[in-house]
């Protein structure tokens, strides 16, 4: 039976949904750091407020599907990335409560905006750190994590963390260009260009470093056409984003950003496959019994289309440009 493969596809789908959807939310949050005008910050946050909760839910979906379908991977990866995961969760916490608290507080809104922005930045960085940690490989013995929780404090994870934060900023800039009013268009264009440039540089450094320390990645790039194609595609898209100006149609940078991330995730999937804990545990070794896989997959097959339908409906309700005075005005 190929159930573990189907489950892995669902985990990958949920993770992709999370990365692209919460990616632009986190990106908008990071860009708050560079927006001095309080009214513009209100406008930026308003553009993501009605839908952020649904976007964030995809990370829980990915996490618990891992628990249900690949309990061995779940129980290896979470202790391995203990510190960055907890810091990510705390940062996501600050980001999440700031949506509500900043509205409640006129005097201290600046501080909640800071909590929002730093929370977004730290969460993005930690996610990149985890990705880098996965790429350098996880030490496993007897289906248990056997490395140190400090294994992630190394150059490759740190560079990946920075790269992902700028990658999210590209998405966030694209979202702002799509949703914000005239006043923020210049800011959005500038954000996209700068973030894309820094992202491309950091990503290039990370690739060179990864090839140096992880033979698994080197052999995949050497032998696998798709992996290499994804890598080239990624740089092509990022450099394309450097040309975004005010004349570009509003949806173009956002769609390019989504494409950038889908290509990136595909590239990673090709490198990691058939492992689920990179370079040590395969999908099949980590999988739970078929009864557990079946229940999750049947549930997912039936409910996911409905989830996607009403999530799309929620986006449609709040379609068009974000009103400058907020959604309630």
């Amino acid at each position, binding site marked *: 039976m190929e159930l573990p493969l189907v489950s892995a596809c669902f985990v990958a789908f949920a993770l992709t949904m999370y990365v692209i959807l919460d990616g632009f939310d986190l990106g908008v949050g990071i860009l708050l750091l560079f927006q001095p*005008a309080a*009214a513009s910050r209100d406008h930026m946050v308003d553009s993501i*407020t*009605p*839908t952020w*909760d*649904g976007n*964030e*839910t995809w990370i*829980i*979906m990915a*996490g*618990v*599907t891992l*628990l*249900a*379908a690949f*309990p061995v991977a*779940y*129980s290896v990866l*979470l*202790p391995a990335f*203990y510190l960055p995961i*907890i810091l990510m*969760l705390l940062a*996501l*916490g600050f*980001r*999440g*409560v700031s*949506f*509500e608290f900043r*509205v*409640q507080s006129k005097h201290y809104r600046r501080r909640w905006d800071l909590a929002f922005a730093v929370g977004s930045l730290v969460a993005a960085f930690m996610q990149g750190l985890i990705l880098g940690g996965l790429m350098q490989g996880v030490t496993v013995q007897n*289906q248990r994590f056997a490395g140190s*929780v400090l294994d992630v404090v190394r150059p490759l994870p740190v560079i990946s963390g920075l790269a992902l934060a700028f990658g999210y900023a590209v998405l966030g800039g694209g979202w702002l260009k799509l949703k914000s*009013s*005239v*006043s923020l268009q210049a800011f959005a264009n500038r954000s996209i260009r700068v973030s894309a440039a820094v992202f491309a540089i950091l990503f290039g450094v990370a690739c060179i470093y990864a090839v140096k320390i992880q033979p698994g990645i080197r052999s995949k790039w050497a032998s696998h056409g798709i992996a290499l194609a994804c890598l080239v595609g990624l740089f092509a898209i990022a450099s394309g984003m450097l040309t975004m100006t005010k004349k570009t149609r509003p949806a173009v940078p956002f769609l390019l950003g989504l494409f950038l991330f889908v290509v990136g995730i595909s590239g990673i999937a090709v490198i990691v496959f058939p492992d689920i804990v990179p370079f040590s545990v395969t999908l099949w070794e980590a999988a*739970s*019994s078929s*009864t*557990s896989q079946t*229940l*999750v997959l049947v*549930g997912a097959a039936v*409910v*996911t289309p409905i989830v996607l339908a*009403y*999530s799309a*409906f*929620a986006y449609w*309700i*709040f379609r*068009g*440009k974000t009103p*400058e005075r907020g*959604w*309630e*005005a």
Partner: protein
Amino acid sequence: MKLDPSILARIQFAFTVSFHIIFPTMSIGLASFLAVIEALWLKTKKPVYLQIYKFWLSIFAMGFGIGVVTGIVLSFEFGLGFARFAQMAGPAIGPLIALEVLTAFFLEAGFLGIMLFGLHRVGPKLHFFATCMVAIGTLVSASWILSANSWMQTPAGVAIHDGHLTVVSWLHVLVNPSWLHRLPHMLTAAYLTASFMVAGVGAWYLLKGKHQQFARTTLGLGTAFAAVLIAGQVFIGDILYGTMLKHQPSKMQAAEGFWEKQSQSPAPYYWFIVPDQDHQRNRFELGIPYLGSIWLTHSLDGRVQGLKNTPRDLQPRMGMVFYAFRIMYGLAMVMFAVGVASLWLRFRGKLFSSRWFLWILAFMTPSGIIATLAGWYVAETGRQPWVIYGVLRTVDAVSPVPARALLSTLIAFVCVYGVFITAFLVFAVRIIRRGPGEAPPHAEASGSVKNAFRPYVLDNPERLVNGHITQRS
């Protein structure tokens, strides 16, 4: 001092899950309350209902936000702190939680935005639908997670071969022996929590002589719900007591404070004990004679089973379970008295004017939350030393994470959650002081149905002057 990772992992989980459950308890109760209020508004068109809706929506929104972000932590903490548990129990509880995410979390999240910001855009009917979807989402979510937790209390439907667990029957995993009693117990607790919150704030306004119409409506509704619910809760609680006595006797033995295999006859009902676990006795005990026999055995001279019926190394700590149970049960009795008093005062037409009663209600505002927390402490500390009762011990479930990492993240959780709860309380108190109708931040609809039906205003470029955005009020 040498730090023990298993103790630290347990403290961290206990702290984060205790903090979290406060907010879903409120959200489950308030979401259904808001659905009822919006239905009343749609039916009667009385502005006071929209006022109540908007007021409680702003508190609901803050609580829901904290519930979401502290809930995500838990779905990862199974693996962060208790990797061995995750590896073993994942095949059984993982799919339940995955289905919870699919059928509940997405539903809540998808419609929350419309509930908070969509009144103008979708009109009152569709908005009411969104409120109902969020309320249903909270109930569905509670059903799945109670099923998963009940499976840990009374595991069923699985086969275990050399530490690997395989599900044999999903029906038995899902409908395990305690779920059907624990689910209504928790839902009633959540509804009681909301009822006492709503009635308490109304009582406070009446004591201050402010917002009369708002206060009378909420107090009237809150006490009516509370009176019915607490009667039901006492009944459900009694059935659950019998279920747990049968399936997890050690928990109920610890809850009643007796050590000897058979207590004296007639048995007293202890309210205060100083347990000495090492010597398997109480150093001090204070109780009401006969009441233990009457309540626990439904006879005048029945004997109650003590904790010595459970082997020493499989006993929970008596003090924790006993006092958590006393707090929950004591509060339930006070709630019952308040419910009866409210019916009497309502019958006499003095519900809104008896100041002593209003004071009691105001003090009872957080009673549901405290009772629910205490109830969860009975459930979770009473299950110890097991994490999956009879299957896996908590000490054997811990992750290979060093104690120092656990300690530093525990401190971080305490600090961050401290900020969250402080901000929540400050803002909630401010909202309550400001009172209804004083420009609450959410759903600033003007109140008339006509306005709510107004088509949404697209971005209006004329309002922009030199790229300057008008400051939001």
